[in-house]
């Protein structure tokens, strides 16, 4: 997507770090889900989808079984739709066996205000009734505005509101990285979305 903000300069995670934390999260999922035999991974577009696919690959390596993976677009459940122009939708792709009675692990790149995850829970509720829902994120940068926490966190990254966190994934951005930058001239008010 277009991003006119200055590219943040300071990488806090590089490709090998990201690979390592994804592997760790995969092991944690297997451990907590007791074998992960009913896990469905749903990535939140755009970058959450790629992270979910990578997690699915790792879970398959660990368990020897294929783990269903899909995407869950939350655009039409957002609470900030009227703050800007109507947004283009991303793909919602639920694996064939659905989510009923299963453990859904939502996967996103950055956890910030928690509003995206609130929207994702609403969207999920319209699709089916999972046994339980968990959340995996690559980075938790704090500043929650809703009572939401992640079950699996790649890196806790304390930030100020003036800072920006940008996740790059090779599939979409050509390389893997988590970049910490400064919002150029933006007022340090609360997070607008997320």
């Amino acid at each position, binding site marked *: *997507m*277009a*991003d*006119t903000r200055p590219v943040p300069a300071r990488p806090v995670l590089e490709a090998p770090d990201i690979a390592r934390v994804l592997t760790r999260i995969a092991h944690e999922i297997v451990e907590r889900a007791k074998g992960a035999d009913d896990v469905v991974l749903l990535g939140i577009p*755009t*970058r959450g989808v790629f992270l979910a696919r990578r997690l699915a690959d790792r879970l398959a390596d660990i368990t020897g079984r294929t783990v269903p993976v899909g995407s869950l*677009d939350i655009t*039409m*459940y957002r609470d900030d*739709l*009227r*703050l*800007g*122009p*109507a*947004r*283009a*939708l*991303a*793909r*919602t792709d639920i694996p064939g066996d659905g989510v009923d009675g299963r453990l859904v692990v939502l996967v*996103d*790149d*950055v*956890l*910030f*205000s928690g509003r*995206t995850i609130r929207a994702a829970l*609403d969207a999920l509720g*319209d*699709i*089916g009734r999972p046994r339980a829902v968990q959340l995996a*994120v690559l980075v938790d940068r704090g500043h929650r505005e809703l009572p939401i926490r992640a079950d699996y966190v790649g890196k806790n990254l304390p930030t100020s509101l003036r800072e*920006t*966190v*940008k*996740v790059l994934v090779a599939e979409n951005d050509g390389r893997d990285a988590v970049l910490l930058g400064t919002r150029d001239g*933006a007022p340090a008010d609360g*997070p*607008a*979305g*997320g």
Partner: protein
Amino acid sequence: MKRHLISAADLTRDDAVLVLDTAEEMARVADRPIKKLPTLRGRTVVNLFYEDSTRTRISFEAAAKRLSADVINFSAKGSSVSKGESLKDTALTLEAMGADAVVIRHPSSGAPHRLATSGWIKGSVVNAGDGTHEHPTQALLDAFTVRRHLAGAADGGPVPHGAPAGDGTGRDLAGRRITIVGDVLHSRVARSNVLLLNTLGAHVTLVAPPTLVPIGVESWPCEVSYDLDAVLPGSDAVMMLRVQRERMNAAFFPTEREYARRYGLDAARMAALPEHAIVMHPGPMNRGMEITAEVADSERCTAVEQVANGVSIRMAVLYLQLGGALPADSPAAAAGAPTPARTEESE
């Protein structure tokens, strides 16, 4: 996208692809246990229908309701309109009731344009068919149907007849050859389709008796032929327009029989189409007139599917117009433009 959808010409190629792509997502909602989205909660959509058109009205109504909008149906019959209330006063009434969008069907060409530009209302205006002018959502659903069939395979090519619907997300209709047959003169569907299909890169050919071709058609972005049989072998899709039997009385053609013989689609003519070609009809069909029952009921005929696609398209249009503070930017327009503040986790 523009705030109003009056003409298919209001849509750029990127706008049109955005609507089709959005409709593709909306179509998936229809497969879910809960066929409803909360997106337009608190928004009010008025269906202002000056002509009886149950099909179009319920399609818009279903679309608005699936997006959780409040729907008010305002039909000219039995209302103040039939007592002589002007369009202006009706519009002012709807404005006072807080209409966020007005879906208007009107027998006079240009009435939606007038509603949108007169300053009578602030909401979005969606043209649901005006006189013999345009019917842009019909053209969009037709294009959507064409794309799913002719550009829906993984390689961008046609999907076999009878196979599940394809998905042409992101694609236009470049190079597809679409033939529109029938009463072009009186057809808002034909006007909107010529404009939209051309915008999407398709080659359009109109086939009609010369009496039913509008003066000035030379300036339209399409070919014109009087000979259906010559055009069929080179058509990827053939769209049969409804021909009203009353036209016969105004000497547009001599008899129904002669019309059907020269311009109707029967099994023999359908066999002249390429293997992958589809047969479309905006409905309601005059079986035996422009299309035989055998063709209408064949697996190549998409008439029923077009109805279903109509709901998805109208959901997409309503979402893109009302889903934000402003209508959606098409991807090309958005690229390079400053995006509103978003947090990185949503990107």
